């Protein structure tokens, strides 16, 4: 990775972190509110991200825009399956609502100085490792 690129990814990460913080997606309270359907806030946040994202992806595809290295932008299709997405998704959702943060907020909240998230992070690594060990025995 070129040093210039390192700085770019770092800045994009900082932007993303600020957007999620100021968008309140990192709030345990907001996640409770979302799952209780008591405010439009999180739906507006995720929805507008997807609408803007979908428009930009369509622009990239229609105009066959290349990436900055001149390569074709290929967005790999996800594997066709139901079980892994549904079962894995349910597990993830249980964790999301319990801790109140999905993956990016985990990192962002560590930046807030929330040490509890270091524990969540460590066990997310354990969870990922155990998935690797048991993967062959799970329905995919």
């Amino acid at each position, binding site marked *: *990775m070129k040093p210039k690129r390192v700085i770019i*990814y*770092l800045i*994009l*990460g*900082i932007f993303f972190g*600020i*957007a*999620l*913080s*100021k968008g309140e997606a990192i*709030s*345990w*309270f*907001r996640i*409770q509110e979302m*799952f209780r359907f*008591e405010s439009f*806030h999180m739906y507006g946040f*995720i929805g507008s*991200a*997807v609408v*803007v*994202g*979908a428009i*930009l992806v369509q622009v*990239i595809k229609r105009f066959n825009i290349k990436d900055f290295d001149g390569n074709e932008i290929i967005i790999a299709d996800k594997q066709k*399956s139901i079980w*892994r997405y*549904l*079962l*894995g*998704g349910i*597990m*993830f*959702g*249980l*964790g*999301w609502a*319990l801790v109140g943060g*999905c*993956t*990016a907020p985990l*990192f*962002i909240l560590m*930046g*807030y100085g*929330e040490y*509890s998230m270091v*524990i*969540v*992070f460590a*066990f997310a690594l*354990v*969870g*990922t490792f*155990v*998935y*690797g*060990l048991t993967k062959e025995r799970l329905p995919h």
Partner: protein
Amino acid sequence: MMENIIAPWPWYVTGPIVGATMAILLLFGKSLGLSSNFRIICSACGAGKKNSFFNFDWKRESWNLVFAIGCIIGGFISYKYLGGDHLAGISDATANHLQSLGITSDNHYVLPSELFNASAIFSVKGLLMLTIGGFLIGFGSRYAGGCTSGHAISGLSNLQLPSLIAVIGYFIGGLIMTWLIIPFIL
């Protein structure tokens, strides 16, 4: 100007920034997805010797670690300088409900201190919550092949059916936790 920055930002400003960040990453040949970092870190720690799932060239994916470090810094900046420690607050309905469960701390902050402060971390219940929650996030995101950023943002933006199934799964899990388990354990 500065007052506007410190004040809470509406979702129609922050949401599009997230969507645009995903698209900018595509222009650098990368796809947004934070949970991949768990696998990358496992691999970097030598998990590839134990299990082939972690035996890949993680250095090629190291941009994602840089992005995650950016998220940590972004969190710090927003907490320290951009008013990220004082949110808009939640609806009265949710606040009243949480109060009835004993969560009375100020919802203008990101986390309830009852569940995440030092004394909670060192209580059995608090520790179980954090460890089980973390485990489910790590296991579930890899099993589902992505987390909220990878499926809900990247995947749905690309109109991928599997991502929609994953997001439905997130909601089934989230609703079970919010309506059935949290009221029971708090």
